[in-house]
């Protein structure tokens, strides 16, 4: 449903998106995961027609978004990061506006608006001006405005930013419901746990490059069953590397005078051994152990934690 091939977007000398390729299917949630500035929003912008790609191609339901823009856009729904709702209007009026923007009218528009209001849990507040809504309610309405015209492809650009936990759960349920109805959902986030629980396929982006892509299982397999262990303190990097090398089966992900990040199997059992090795190269003040996860894969791929 969405096919992105060798997508490049250049702003002057800087590359915002650098050769990204992936496909997203109907009835599935495809996650674009990465820190701020990774190129997720630019990629979504290229798909929605907001951003013109420097090279590469993007098609939605077989329609090229550049050459056959109108047909491609007819199938698209977008939920931007910003709250694209009008505060002086009611929830009903907001949904009517966005439905009309995609060509809905008359009885079809009115019945669809009622349906969406019920889905997003705002039916009982439908006539109130949005400025009286809580942040979570506005987020749900923002989501509703993106689906009111029954899009076949839904682009969600970090829709849960700044949302309270309860509203986040509700929003994620709404996203799952869209996929269950056969919609192709492209979901960008920098929340690892969201991506892990929501997405069937994922691509990890950083600095515009796609570092890895696949199902959650495929990505975990790339990490193996390795745990990540962080040691904070003060170290002689060369002596630390040498001491760890002597232990065998330990991958140094990152090493600096203040921190060592290691990947190894069954790290909890090997902690005394690791502490001893790094203790001989300096002073260990803090230790953190992480089980295999998307975050640990991201750290393994980039050598750094996911930035907010």
């Amino acid at each position, binding site marked *: 449903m969405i096919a992105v091939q060798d997508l490049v977007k250049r702003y002057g000398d800087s590359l915002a998106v650098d050769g990204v390729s992936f496909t997203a299917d109907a009835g599935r949630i495809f996650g674009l995961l990465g820190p701020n500035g990774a190129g997720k929003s630019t990629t979504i912008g290229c798909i929605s027609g*907001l951003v*013109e790609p420097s090279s590469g191609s993007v098609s939605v339901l077989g329609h090229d978004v550049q050459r056959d823009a109108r047909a491609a856009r007819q199938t698209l*729904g977008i*939920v931007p990061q*910003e709250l*694209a709702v009008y505060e002086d*209007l009611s929830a009903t009026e907001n949904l009517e506006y966005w439905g009309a*923007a995609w060509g809905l009218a008359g009885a079809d528009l009115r019945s669809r608006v009622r349906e969406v209001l019920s889905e997003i849990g705002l039916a009982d507040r439908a006539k109130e001006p949005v400025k009286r809504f809580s942040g979570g309610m506005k987020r749900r309405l923002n989501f509703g405005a993106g689906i009111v015209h029954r899009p076949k492809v839904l682009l969600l650009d970090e829709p849960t930013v700044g949302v309270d936990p309860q509203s986040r759960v509700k929003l994620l349920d709404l996203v799952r419901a869209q996929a269950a109805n056969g919609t192709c959902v492209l979901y960008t986030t920098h929340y690892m746990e969201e991506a892990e629980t929501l997405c069937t396929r994922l691509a990890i982006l950083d600095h515009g490059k796609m570092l890895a892509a696949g199902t959650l299982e495929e990505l975990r397999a790339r990490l193996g069953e390795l745990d990540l262990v962080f040691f904070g303190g003060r170290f002689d990097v060369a002596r630390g590397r040498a001491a760890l090398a002597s232990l065998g089966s330990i991958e140094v992900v990152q090493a600096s005078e203040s921190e060592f990040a290691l990947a190894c199997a069954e790290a909890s059992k090997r902690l005394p051994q690791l502490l001893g090795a790094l203790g001989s190269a300096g002073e260990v003040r803090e230790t953190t152990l992480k089980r295999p996860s998307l975050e640990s894969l991201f750290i393994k791929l980039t050598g750094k934690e996911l930035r907010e």
Partner: protein
Amino acid sequence: MNALVRATALKDLRERLRDPAALALWVGIPIVIGVLMSLGMGGSSGPKPKSPLYVVDHDETFVSKGLGLAFERGPFAELFDVSTPTEHEARAALADDRGSALIVIPKGFGAALLRDEATELELVENPAQRILPGIVEQTLALVPELAFHLNQLIGPDLRARFESFDDHEPSDTEIVALSLELRHQIERLQKFLFPPVLELTTEAASEGDANTGFSFGAAFFPSLLFMSLIFLAHGFAEDIWKEKRQGALRRLVASPQGLAGFLLGKLLGALAIAAPIAAVGLAIGWSAFDMPAARLPLAWAWLVLAMALFWCLFALVQVTSSSERGANVVGNMVLFPLLMLGGSFFPFEVMPSWMAAIGRWTPNGWALTRFRGWLERDASVGAIALAFGAMVVLIAAAFAFGARRLERSFVRN
């Protein structure tokens, strides 16, 4: 109509009507300015402000005093407040922009005038004023001509009489004698000067007729209407940046109907508010300032089109600015010079001619000039059609450029 156009117009209309305070502010500011300026300039009735006129009389003869008194009589009395300070005080006052002009009457002026000899009057004008010093100058320019004709007609007889006043103030008896002398001379000349070809019948003017003179309120009212529309257009166009900031444009760009429809909807939404305001304004003009009823539909259509032009121009400012703050700054930089030059703050009549000439070619000045012209006198259908055609072309050009800019770069940056 395109669904997006209709939906955007309706959405904007609802938003405006739910924020009546903002609407009242946009319409209210020009009304407050107009009322204050009208009051400051004397309004449509009541005493008119006078400007000081200084007369320094070094001659102090009956003739020189008569010249000073001339500016305290008749129509001059409504314009000038004549005083006789010292020359130094008068010059200082003019330098401080207090007063319109100073007339310096030299010693020997009266005698020279009666003997038909060369003499000089000095007129010092306030350079900051234009109209009132001009009136004084033109009036003084008549003095030599008047003196010449008086000398030709009754000079020898009156000269002896005036010269007798040089060494003392004339007594009541002498003034009565002079009056009788003048009357006698005028009656003698009447058959030559005033042949009885026309008979003048006079009657008391009605109170309504008495108020048909210059009314700043009436002259300023069209300017006020345009000022309201410009403020509205400026305020409404600022919404474009707000819509970008809140992500509405980011979502709309993915819609199949394009952003031109959105922009057109916003324009129609603005007109839906401005059109009734213009109608109410014209109704006020009709009842308070006798705007001709038959011409009001044309005036209304013109006001609505003018609003469309102003909105398109301010929308252009918005979509060509790289930030919301920049758009606000540039918008205000365009707004106030347009108001000042284009006849919205001050009628063209009170501007220096060079400024009025420039102002009449600003978009609002051009529209205001035609608006006032059509209300004040008949215009040919051709001239009206030409003006409407030009207006539509201007609106279309500004809109097309704005829509292109919105689609190509504004939303995407």
